[in-house]
């Protein structure tokens, strides 16, 4: 397959739009569209009124045509806003440019201008682009010269797209590129749907947040004394650690490692760290005003597909409801008469590692339903009849070891995680190497391939180039993460095309919604399609999934954030309570 397959033509497309009512979180309102046929250069321009009168796109969008865009989910958002059927084939040059340059850090970034500069193609300046974008976002009304200027600007993007397509066409891996384009359509469906939030509670939180913050610090810091006002003081934390004999990880500089991951890890071993970690996360991540919520109370934001090196989505932490602290997910609530289901693949990374490496013991462990217990049994540390109920402590250690391998953790970190001597951590890691020899051989080969061949790839062509700085841990982890991303993308495609309402993709999970009387059926279909996605990516190996269903009037709750949610809600009740007369 190549560009010659599209006998009905190749159409380069760009819309200008702003969110309805100028409110981020609302769907787009298309202002204009320019279409350019490639390679002939025949161009048509359409202003808002024209577009709204059209029942569908004014160019072929069937099996024999191709629609090309840069960041195509935005164009597909406009198709949906106009009620047009989406094109069958989409080629997204953003996805292709990201795939072609992933790991190489292109000098000017991965935006359209960056891609043009990468290929030494002419472009308008970033300042010009910004100024025209501002004009569009001003929401009009635009006089005739302004309309002409916006259309002209829109056309510069399709002219640039034409040049970019000509530069990239020879290196496009067509079948897999079209699969990536197909995902951009799924992304658009998901972005349009969004996640329902409990807006009255969100508004109350925003209105009272300053008081809540002060009260939270007062309540929790009472046992620690590490805050001064609303500032967390590292020096006071260090004193607390010394007084409580907690061996805290340090950076190479000798300073305490203060990242949230470290707090999370340490909270697992030293339970007294958990409340202060939750408080820090709650205070630092909570920028409620940034959360993008539409007029209909649904959280919608750019999912930023293909943005991470593994190809995963990378939505803004502050705009996406699954980005901030886990307790804030309590804001997710189905609308009346509807239900939600959070469905995640069971031990996805372990399953991917087992299937791709072809390690028979690892595959057997995955199929057992409890790979951690199975690992302990396979390693001879527990009897074949052992279960997580009879051997909880052993299972926890072997689970920590499996996760340590997945994260590329060394023996020292694992020892801290387990609160065990380094010798025990070393022993566990050695048992993993011995039990899953085939996996380790394959993992070593992945690093060899990356270093010698210069790149690694997934089952569907997402790739990472090896730069001058080789990170063994990232390279070993890439096949699991990036194939996990492929699996999620394919599941999104299958589910949105099957009519399932997907609210959000979340790492290895999907949040869906359905009317209450259809929820069970929707869950069953979604799980079947997620299984299908795993079979597609893993050459027949099937991953199971777990479901958490929420029915109105219940709200979604991440168990990691339940305590903090309760605490905040109680504080809010107190704050909002009217003073007695």
């Amino acid at each position, binding site marked *: 397959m190549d560009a010659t397959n599209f006998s009905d033509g190749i159409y380069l497309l760009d819309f200008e739009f702003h969110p309805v009512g100028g409110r981020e979180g609302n769907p787009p309102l298309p202002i204009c569209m320019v279409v350019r046929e490639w390679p002939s250069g025949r161009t048509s321009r359409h202003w808002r009124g024209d577009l709204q009168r059209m029942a569908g796109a004014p160019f072929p969008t069937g099996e024999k045509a191709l629609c090309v865009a840069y960041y195509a989910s935005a164009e597909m958002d406009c198709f949906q806003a106009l009620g047009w059927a*989406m094109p069958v084939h989409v080629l997204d040059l953003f996805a292709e440019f990201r795939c072609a340059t992933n790991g190489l850090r292109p000098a000017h970034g991965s935006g359209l201008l960056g891609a043009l500069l990468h290929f030494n193609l002419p472009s308008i300046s970033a300042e010009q682009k910004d100024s025209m974008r501002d004009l569009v976002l001003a929401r009009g009304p635009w006089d005739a010269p302004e309309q002409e200027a916006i259309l002209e600007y829109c056309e510069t993007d399709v002219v640039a797209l034409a040049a970019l397509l000509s530069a990239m066409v020879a290196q496009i891996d067509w079948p897999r590129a079209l699969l990536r384009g197909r995902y951009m359509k799924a992304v658009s469906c998901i972005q349009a749907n969004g996640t329902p939030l409990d807006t009255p509670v969100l508004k109350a939180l925003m209105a009272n947040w300053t008081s809540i913050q002060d009260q939270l610090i007062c309540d929790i810091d009472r046992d620690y004394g590490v805050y001064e006002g609303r500032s967390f003081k590292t020096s006071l934390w260090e004193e607390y650690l010394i007084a409580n004999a907690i061996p805290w990880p340090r950076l190479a500089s000798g300073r305490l490692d203060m990242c949230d991951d470290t707090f999370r890890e340490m909270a697992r071993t030293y339970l007294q760290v958990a409340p202060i970690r939750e408080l820090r996360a709650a205070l630092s991540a909570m920028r409620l005003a940034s959360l993008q919520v*539409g007029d209909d109370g649904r959280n919608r934001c750019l999912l930023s597909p293909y943005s991470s090196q593994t190809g995963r989505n990378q939505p803004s932490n502050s705009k996406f409801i699954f980005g901030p602290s886990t307790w804030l997910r309590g804001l997710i609530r189905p609308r009346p008469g509807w239900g939600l289901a959070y469905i995640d693949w069971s031990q996805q990374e372990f399953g991917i590692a087992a299937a791709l490496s072809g390690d028979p013991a690892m595959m057997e462990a995955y199929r057992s339903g409890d790979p951690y217990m199975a690992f302990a049994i396979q390693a001879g540390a527990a009897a074949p009849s052992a279960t997580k109920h009879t051997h909880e402590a052993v299972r926890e250690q072997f689970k920590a070891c499996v996760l340590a391998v997945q994260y590329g953790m060394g023996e020292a970190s694992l020892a801290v995680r387990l609160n065990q001597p380094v010798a025990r951590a070393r022993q566990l890691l050695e048992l993993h190497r011995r039990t899953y020899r085939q996996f380790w051989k394959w993992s070593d080969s992945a690093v060899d391939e990356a270093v010698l061949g210069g790149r690694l790839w997934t089952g569907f062509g997402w790739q990472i180039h090896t730069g001058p700085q080789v990170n063994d841990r990232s390279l070993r982890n890439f*096949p699991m993460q990036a194939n996990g991303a492929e699996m999620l993308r394919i599941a999104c495609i299958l589910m949105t095309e099957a009519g399932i309402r997907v609210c959000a993709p979340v790492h290895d999970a999907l949040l869906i919604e359905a009317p209450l009387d259809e929820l069970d059926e929707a869950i069953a279909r979604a799980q079947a399609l997620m299984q299908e996605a795993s079979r597609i990516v893993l050459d027949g190996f099937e991953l199971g999934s777990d479901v958490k269903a929420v029915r109105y009037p219940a709200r979604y709750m991440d168990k990691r954030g339940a305590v903090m949610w309760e605490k905040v809600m109680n504080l809010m009740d107190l704050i909002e309570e009217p003073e007695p007369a």
Partner: protein
Amino acid sequence: MKALPITPKAASSLAVDVKSLRLPANYGATLGVKKLLTSVSVGKPEKSRFFRCHPSSEMAFMAMLLEQKESHEYYVVMPDIAQAISELVRPVMLHAAIDRQNNVFLIPVPLPEDSGTRHSAHESLAQAVEYAKLHWIRIAYNKPTSGYDVYEAMGVIPEPEWSAHDIDSLVDIAFRGKVIDSLDHPVVQSFLGRI
């Protein structure tokens, strides 16, 4: 606000069989990377080290060894030189062995004297080596009994993965730069008190 269609209207089918697009994760397959055996240690395994010995008699090698105890180094001595310094060398059988980390090493087991007698510790070591041909064991010297205690691993441990090297190449690697073929060799000179 306009109600948005959630499902693409015209994108229900694509003539692409997604499964057929799948690329294999056969990293390293075309690059042909293999681990080279570049070092083979010689000596009795430490008391915590589980090991197996190669079951084939082809994987044992008779040699005259000179041991430099201070540096824990062994030297192979060529037969004509061995005769000249017979009081310093010892005839041994080198057995190919492997540990749980797939490290290959050679265990020197002293051979019986011309009279047919053998020190009890050496006899004990020879028996342990025989046992290790079928079982994962570790050994620890027991001074009062002048023999080795043998501890067998009771778990289900996979069979060792032997490399394709024959005993000659293992000996070559193990004694690279450690062959005494002249009385002028510095190690011999040192033993004779000449340097």
